[in-house]
């Protein structure tokens, strides 16, 4: 067999040579050139994708640079007042209380559901599109017209809420009405992620700006923490005595004359009678535990 091959090669040298060149080139084509061509096609496609990516990021950068930081902060502050990041019971109670006082209504009872959730991950509440909600049941007492105005205003304040149910009953032997309202109050936690860095951000649409303007036009019936002056608690400087105040601490105490800086007639302050008005200080009784209040 070997002999035959050798003989063939010797007799057909050129054919063998060209055949070998053909086979080697074919192998080079299959192993080298075709994968290289496919790689370069992929490279071109990658370049195109990268160019699109760059264009998107460029748009995003120019859009972000055009945004006014101060304006955004104002929008954020306004929207956080309407839909806070947490349950914010203080703003909720302030809003309800202010509305009740404004419309001369007395809050006789109040309870809030869904104040606390388990700290574990499984106990975390899933975020809905309109935000998570708390259900508050309020009992109000007052005149029907005042109640009407309360209902009209409560959906136009900057702590967005929705009246889910309303039951009115008349109070015996009076013209006053007791209203039992079920109100849904919303909050929306801060987003955990801001998406991919190359994700395009569209500027606020006209519809969004209209909604924003509508919400901004609503009055805010509580004060945001940033503007309020908070009295700091500073340690009181105490001067420690260097000498004993009395010579004999066990000596019997003798009454001494007290020198008053003011005449005796003004020593007793005139106490004005405190008037309890049902509308001036409405008392809110919340079923929320103090630990749950934030």
């Amino acid at each position: 067999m070997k002999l035959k091959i050798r003989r063939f090669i010797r007799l057909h040298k050129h054919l063998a040579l060209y055949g070998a060149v053909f086979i080697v080139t074919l192998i080079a084509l299959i192993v080298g050139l075709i994968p290289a061509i496919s790689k370069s096609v992929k490279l071109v496609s990658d370049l195109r994708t990268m160019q699109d990516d760059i264009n998107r990021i460029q748009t995003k950068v120019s859009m972000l640079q055009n945004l006014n930081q101060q304006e955004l902060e104002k929008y954020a502050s306004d929207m956080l007042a309407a839909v806070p990041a947490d349950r914010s019971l203080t703003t909720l109670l302030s809003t309800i209380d202010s509305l009740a006082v404004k419309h001369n209504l007395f809050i006789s009872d109040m309870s809030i559901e869904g104040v606390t959730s388990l700290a574990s991950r499984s106990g975390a509440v899933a975020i809905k599109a309109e935000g998570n909600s708390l259900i508050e049941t309020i009992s109000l007492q007052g005149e029907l017209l005042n109640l009407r105005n309360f209902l009209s205003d409560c959906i136009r304040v900057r702590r967005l809420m929705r009246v889910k149910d309303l039951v009115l009953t008349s109070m015996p032997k009076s013209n006053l009405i007791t209203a039992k309202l079920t109100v849904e109050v919303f909050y929306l936690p801060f987003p955990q992620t801001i998406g991919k860095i190359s994700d395009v951000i569209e500027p606020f649409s006209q519809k969004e700006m209209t909604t924003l303007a509508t919400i901004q036009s609503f009055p805010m019936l509580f004060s945001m923490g940033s503007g309020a002056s908070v009295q700091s608690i500073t340690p009181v400087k105490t001067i420690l005595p260097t000498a004993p105040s009395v010579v004999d601490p066990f000596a019997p105490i003798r009454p001494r004359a007290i020198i008053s800086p003011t005449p005796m007639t003004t020593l007793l302050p005139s106490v004005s009678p405190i008037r309890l008005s049902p509308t001036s200080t409405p008392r809110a009784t919340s079923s929320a535990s103090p630990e749950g209040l934030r």
Partner: protein
Amino acid sequence: MASQNINLFQTKSTIQPLLELIEQYVRIASMSLLAFVLTGGIMVSAAFYIFGQQRDAMEKDRQLLLQQVKDNVSKESLFLMVRARIAAGEKILSTQVSYAPFIDTTIKVLQSFSLSSFSMGQKNSVSITVSVASLTDATRVLATLMDMEKKKEISNPILQSFSMDEKKIQIGLTYTVVL
């Protein structure tokens, strides 16, 4: 000096014409393939070099832009936070119901009489109980209700209950407020 060896092998065999033809074809094919592979190799290498350079330049630009995005991350997070809240606000506003028109209608029905109870039902329906002192007052309440129905302020007025004792008359009414 003459060779003393005698070569019994044929130095040249009789080449068959078919093999000659094959050799010709193989030569052409191998040369063409070689030329193609060489040319293709050069072109692909050139393309790799050019596109590689371009990719490096673009990657540099991309990194620069990404850094700019990172520098504005506070703005972006503020923007996204506001946008999420606007979306939530939009949804809340669209589903809010004002109960004021229902109370307005009730006040109109009541006139000066006292309301015993009020409750909201399905599809804008309202159920109220009105306390009146006499049958004449009861008739006035019902007449007002019919008048409002004619003006299309309410629809489907139904007298649910009517009770009378020595002190007062209680009228239970149900109607749907036309918004």
